[in-house]
């Protein structure tokens, strides 16, 4: 298993993707392996790239982030998904995302430290999961 955390970014805004990528590029422990601009594309990209973590927006055309989260969790339960959305502060939306299995919900606009903290937790999870059970 690769030591780097393999991440897919999903957002219909190129600006949001650019911002997330700039934060993640600065982290040696992360590799952005794919991007998608709606939920339907996210499902294809995740199937192809098999990332450790998906950072996904909610409000998107075609298939929104909540619907994509539901599908991804049922099709590929090992993939961990964090929501990064402007409606992430809405308790009803965040609650729904957590119930569907999101590992974290980050409200936009985010601080760099929030993403770094999320990545640190996910790296720790990856290392723990990779450790052989005795």
């Amino acid at each position, binding site marked *: 298993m690769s030591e780097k955390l393999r991440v897919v970014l999903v957002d*219909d*805004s*190129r*600006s*949001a993707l*650019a*911002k997330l990528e*700039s*934060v993640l590029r600065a982290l040696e422990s992360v590799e952005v392996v794919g991007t998608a601009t709606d939920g339907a594309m996210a499902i294809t990209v995740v199937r192809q790239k098999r990332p450790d973590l998906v950072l996904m927006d909610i*409000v*998107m*055309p075609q298939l929104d982030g909540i619907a994509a989260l539901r599908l991804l969790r049922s099709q590929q339960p090992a993939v961990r998904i964090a929501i990064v*959305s*402007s*409606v*992430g*502060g*809405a*308790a*009803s*939306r*965040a609650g729904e995302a957590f119930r569907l299995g999101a590992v*974290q919900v*980050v*409200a*936009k*606009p985010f601080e760099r*430290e*929030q993403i*770094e*903290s*999320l990545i*640190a*937790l996910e790296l*720790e999870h990856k290392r723990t999961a990779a450790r052989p059970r005795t």
Partner: protein
Amino acid sequence: MSVKFFGQFLIEQGEIDAGQLREALERMQMRNRALGDLAIAEGLLAWSDAERLNAAQREVDRPFGELAVAKGMLSREDLERLLCRQREQRLPLGEALVELGHLSVTRLGALLDRFKIDQSSIETGQISLPSALTRLRLVPIVLDLLPRFCMRVARLYLKLAPARSQEIDSALAHRVTLDVRGAQYLALGLAADGAVASALAGGISGVARESLDDSLLADGLGEFLNMLAGNAVSALDREGVTAQLEPVRQAVLPPSGHVFDLLATSGRGALVVRVSTLG
């Protein structure tokens, strides 16, 4: 939701107990030096000066440093330097708890995130709204958030006022619209000139302003509107009112609506708010 400080929030969350909070606050008190102490340590003020200023503060509601400048005891440059040093040396509560081993760094990050969501309360702005808009709670929330987000995202100081004309100036060439659906239908339109659009798009994307092409400029402005509306909807959600955001539409504005002028230090824009019960 109630306004609370981070330590109270941590106790409520079961992350620390009151004894640990007290320990952290004591550490902060030891490490966070008062401006007067810093000025004395640098030889800029004598003890007697600081005592006089402390006594004067009981009569006047002004910060210590401002009072010292007003009385000619410190120069403006010295005050700025001291404030900068004070900020640099400041030990926040979270870091104090980490130093004491009561929280891990990663846990602190996650908790700060949750605290921000919990506490992002909304204060309605002081703008007097047309009666058609006062019925909608979302509108004052949007108007309140807009200048704050401009500052936070793009360091753009912006004033907002109801427009005299409902016409949108052709110079405000960058335009985006977003629909909010709930009990009432609300369309929010944002128009900006090149200066405001590039400031917002640059802040949102992290891309240098000179490297923004037209497409990224429009996308960034749209993402800014999405964040603004999303956070307004989140605030409304906390009041028990649910609303849904639609994806942003580029290069259009609502066909009519209430217009607010946006005046930045450099550049300008307009916000268009259209209300309907037909959504």
